[in-house]
């Protein structure tokens, strides 16, 4: 929060821009949070005797230029800075579309996860590009083992919990149970695995989906 307040310190007209997509689902960056953040900023600034104007808006999907463009164009000239409550992708979309405006991130994108229960999310995928779920009983050792071990548990677990945190189950023990249920325990008696850490592609292109002429294949 302090970070955000420092970021926007020098601006007097702030557009707090939420995202209706994934961030809303994770209860961050939706209309409600946008309102909360805007209110907090106003309160902070009022306190400091430097009142500020805030605008609030929510894009449907902030990583999608088509969704961002009309909203920002409509609000053009009403703000000095966009405080984006989207993931990094959203912030960068805004920055790219409107290079003359400051686009600041209000969220720290933590991970890609799924909802465990309301208010609890677990990190389940690192987008590592080398999925091993098929042989780990559907439990990802990359994200759920604190050390991303590929060849079985370390010796640090106690009572089925990870050495790093008692709140965190030992992923490998979970994998063990899962494979046992599936009668696939032999997957664990494997050849040593070296994880392939791919270079992040930076861009993925699927020609079949792309607009424009098909490239001729001779």
């Amino acid at each position, binding site marked *: *929060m302090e970070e955000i307040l420092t970021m926007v310190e020098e601006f007097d007209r702030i557009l707090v821009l939420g995202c209706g997509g994934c961030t809303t689902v994770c209860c961050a960056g939706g209309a409600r949070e946008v309102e*909360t953040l805007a*209110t*907090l900023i106003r*309160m*902070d600034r009022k306190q400091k005797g430097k009142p500020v104007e805030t605008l609030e808006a929510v894009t449907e999907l902030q990583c999608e230029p088509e969704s961002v463009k009309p909203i920002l164009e409509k609000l053009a000239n009403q703000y000095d800075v966009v405080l984006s409550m989207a993931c990094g992708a959203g912030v960068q979309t805004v920055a790219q579309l409107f290079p003359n405006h400051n686009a600041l991130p209000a969220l720290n994108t933590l991970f890609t996860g799924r909802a465990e229960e309301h208010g609890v999310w677990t990190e389940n995928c690192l987008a590592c590009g080398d999925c091993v779920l098929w042989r780990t009983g559907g439990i990802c050792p990359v994200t759920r083992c604190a050390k991303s071990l590929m060849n079985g548990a370390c010796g640090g677990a106690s009572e089925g919990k990870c050495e790093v945190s008692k709140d965190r189950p030992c992923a490998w023990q979970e994998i063990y149970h899962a494979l046992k249920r599936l009668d696939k325990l032999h997957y664990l008696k494997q050849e040593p695995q070296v994880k392939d850490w791919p270079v992040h592609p930076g861009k993925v292109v699927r020609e079949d989906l792309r607009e424009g002429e098909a490239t001729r294949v001779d």
Partner: protein
Amino acid sequence: MSSFEPLIAVFSCHYCSYAAADLAGSSRIQYPPNIRIIKVPCTGRVSANHILKALERGADGVYVAGCLEGTCHFISGNYKAQKRVQYVKALLSEINIEPERVEMHFMSAAQGSKFAAVAAEMTDVIKELGPSPLNHSRY
């Protein structure tokens, strides 16, 4: 500062605390005139934003008054409210506003005297804290 009369917003649920306030009234239990009740069907209806807005718009303190633990007419609305109050407290400390300005209280429809006592207590707490940092201009 002795003349400081704080303004305190109270989110009261229809079933318990509002009724308690009514009872305080019909029992003529006198309490400080600093509170302003905003009635909601259940304290579960009160969002963090409502509490923040009340503060932003000049309340020196805000409290949410729900049913007694375990007796919420809507089962768990009062607990939800309690969590949101906690959340708001955390947010407030981030912008250097005393979290004590926001509180959660529980009371039954039959506790008119508790309603009055809570109103008095909150008034004392806020008087002690002084005007909200957002309201300096007012005093």
